[in-house]
């Protein structure tokens, strides 16, 4: 038996040696930026949220000709994030990105330890109060994208009214959110305002799942809204739960994070998403050239950070694209502000002042006046959203999250 084993072992070792000789030539391009970059992701490609970041990271590095980069996936929002960031810095990374809100404290910790390395954190809120020269936040003015997607939804509602599929008293839409935090509130409010700019009589119901990714809860949430009489659904959570519920019930859906047309060919209208590639390109280039990176960087439609994906003409109403283009032109011209105080009321009253919690503290104290010149200045005092107003016309079904 021993002999048999020995022979097998020898054979395998020889074949392994041969394996080693089949060498992979590593190509190192001379062109492109000479800088090492690290990316930290909460999950891997199986999460739509992280996939969006991973694709952007790869695209940005390819565009800038960077060969030397690392992407670490499945890094939890704990000590491991600091360990990973510090390890990347040890290994010569000069710019390090992290993609999840909970990575922030750990990125700050690493930033303090490595002053020569730039730490860029997407979706965070603390850069403008930490005052570290090498720690930066980034987000996108996604509320503008939501508003535009809302226009597409409004056009669809109007078409349904005109065709007699629904009556004016059925004008109610639904929204599945993750948590009752500002990012979500800002998202559903801007979506609703977009819809209402087309159909002024519309109301909306919002339900929360208490998780960023919970397919069952999102599906159930969408079903509940549909059973409540909502005739169109949108969502802010990362699974296919809501789109697939809409498809099975034949209810039009406005999606998020990218097209979900595969799940809902007969119901998907349009989706808004954040494209992180422009930010990655900007920050990496700035770091390579030794220029300062913005403390808070907010991507917009112009920078290519806010995107609308794939209008499904089979479902969307005629003239949707034209309506969206007109709105984009108005935004660029500065004549259209999503959170114009003329567009919404809180408890029946128009607002002329509002203090938002821009500087993060433990008690969520409002600290900054954000209504000026007749509109709510979202994502200007810091990149992450802080619109937390509960406006009239939207009913929250549960607020426990």
């Amino acid at each position, binding site marked *: 038996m021993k002999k048999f084993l020995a022979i097998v072992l020898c054979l*395998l070792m020889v074949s392994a040696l041969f394996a080693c000789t089949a060498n992979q030539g590593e190509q190192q391009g001379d062109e492109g930026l000479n800088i090492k970059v690290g990316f930290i992701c909460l999950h891997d490609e199986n999460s739509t949220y992280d996939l969006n970041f991973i694709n952007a990271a790869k695209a940005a590095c390819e565009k800038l000709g960077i060969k030397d980069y690392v992407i670490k996936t499945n890094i939890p929002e704990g000590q491991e994030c600091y360990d990973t960031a510090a390890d990347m810095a040890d290994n010569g990374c000069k710019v390090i990105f992290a993609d999840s809100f909970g990575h922030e404290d750990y990125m700050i910790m690493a930033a303090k330890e490595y002053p020569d390395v730039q730490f860029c954190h997407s979706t965070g809120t603390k850069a403008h109060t930490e005052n570290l020269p090498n720690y930066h936040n980034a987000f996108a003015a996604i509320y503008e994208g939501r508003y535009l997607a809302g226009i597409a939804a409004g056009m669809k509602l109007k078409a349904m009214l005109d065709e007699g599929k629904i009556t004016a008293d059925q004008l109610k839409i639904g929204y599945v959110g993750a948590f009752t935090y500002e990012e979500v509130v800002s998202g559903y409010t801007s979506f609703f305002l977009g819809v209402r700019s087309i159909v002024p009589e519309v109301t909306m119901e919002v339900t929360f799942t208490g998780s960023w990714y919970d397919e069952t809860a999102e599906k159930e949430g969408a079903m509940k809204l549909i059973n409540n009489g909502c005739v169109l659904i949108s969502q802010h959570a990362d699974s296919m739960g809501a789109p697939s519920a809409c498809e099975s019930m034949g209810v039009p859906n406005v999606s998020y994070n990218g097209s979900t047309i595969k799940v809902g060919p007969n119901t998907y209208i349009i989706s808004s998403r954040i494209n992180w590639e422009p930010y990655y390109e900007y920050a990496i280039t700035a770091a390579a050239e030794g220029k300062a990176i913005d403390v808070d960087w907010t991507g917009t439609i112009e920078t290519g950070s806010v995107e609308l994906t794939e209008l499904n003409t089979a479902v969307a109403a005629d003239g949707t694209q034209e309506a969206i283009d007109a709105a984009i032109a108005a935004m660029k011209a500065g004549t259209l502000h999503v959170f114009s105080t003329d567009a919404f009321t809180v408890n029946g009253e128009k607002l002329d002042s509002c203090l938002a919690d821009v500087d993060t503290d433990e008690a969520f104290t409002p600290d900054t006046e954000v209504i000026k010149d007749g509109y709510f200045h979202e994502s200007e005092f810091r990149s992450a959203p802080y619109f937390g107003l509960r406006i009239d016309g939207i009913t929250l079904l549960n607020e426990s999250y």
Partner: protein
Amino acid sequence: MLHIAKRAGIPAWKAWLIRGGAIVLALIVCAIVTMIVTGLNPITVFKTMFDGTLGSSRRIWITVYRIAILLGISLAVTPAFKMRFWNIGAEGQVLIGAFAAAVCMFYAGKMPFFQNPDVPLAVKNLIVIPCMVIASLLAGALWGFLPAFFKSRWNTNETLFTLMMNYVALQIVKFMIAYRDVKYPWSSNGTVVGIFNSDQKLGAYSVGWLPEVAGTRYLLPAAVIGVLTVVLYLYLKYSKHGYEIAVVGESERTAMYAGIKVNRVIVRTMVLSGMICGLVGCLLVGTDRTLTDTLVDGRGYTAVMVSWMSKFNPIGMIFSSFLLVFMQYGAKEVASKPELGLNHSFADILTGIILFFIIGCEFFINYQLQFSRSKKREV
């Protein structure tokens, strides 16, 4: 012809030789699979794994810390396994221990005494850290006691019971993280707490953090687990309790006949298991300085494998823990290199191959293959 016979016994060196051979064989199979499936040089892949776990002093420390935590949990489940009490609740026991420690750390940071900058940090920590330890020991003990008590009283199924307790602990932690307490909310967006007492401007800064020893925060937990390993080895091997555990494991009836109070041993051992888990939870929170629902990250289940692979021998567990940590985090490093073009799943495949060989080799330790030689003589 070939037939299989149970070995009467095998010298330790031979057993270890077989295990070593299995690892070598596993690496070779991994190399072949890597080459066939990806066309990459397998040496590059292994080198990357080595580099990822032992490539710098920081990486070595992190690896040591991870080994310590996995080893600690494996130690915790061992007494119960030796007793044939199928405790798969380590995940929950660690998490609830971590939670108890986190509660102490979090609310201490809100108290005026701890916020007073005039009180030295050492004094504050002398109060908070023992509280954290005691709280997590108690919490872990409770999580161990409940299934053992029900088992001894009503003969409930301990596997299901301990498994369910994991979910209870997980949901408690999730609830607290997401719960928006009006006065002291744990998290700002419902998913993460962040680092406890991390605001340098406040007097409660760094209260409850386990102290750094010799410039690294990872030495203290590693040392604690090191001591624990020795203590548990002695406890299982030389103490009366350890002997009782072994007898109950062999046969409950024999134990009863010998006058051992089986139910008492079961409850006592599970409380011990739970307490060790709780302590590990405390080390995790004190070192990581945060609480997340992924803090334990499945290590409560991996520990079951570690314990089994080492035949419940605490010293052997050091090696098994090292191997599993090396594989898991080496794999992560492989997945992080875009030039290799591999993702995490491929690394998992390699881990799977290696585990298959390691677990499979136990077969060759317990059984032997006999090639019948009689035929040759007949010819």
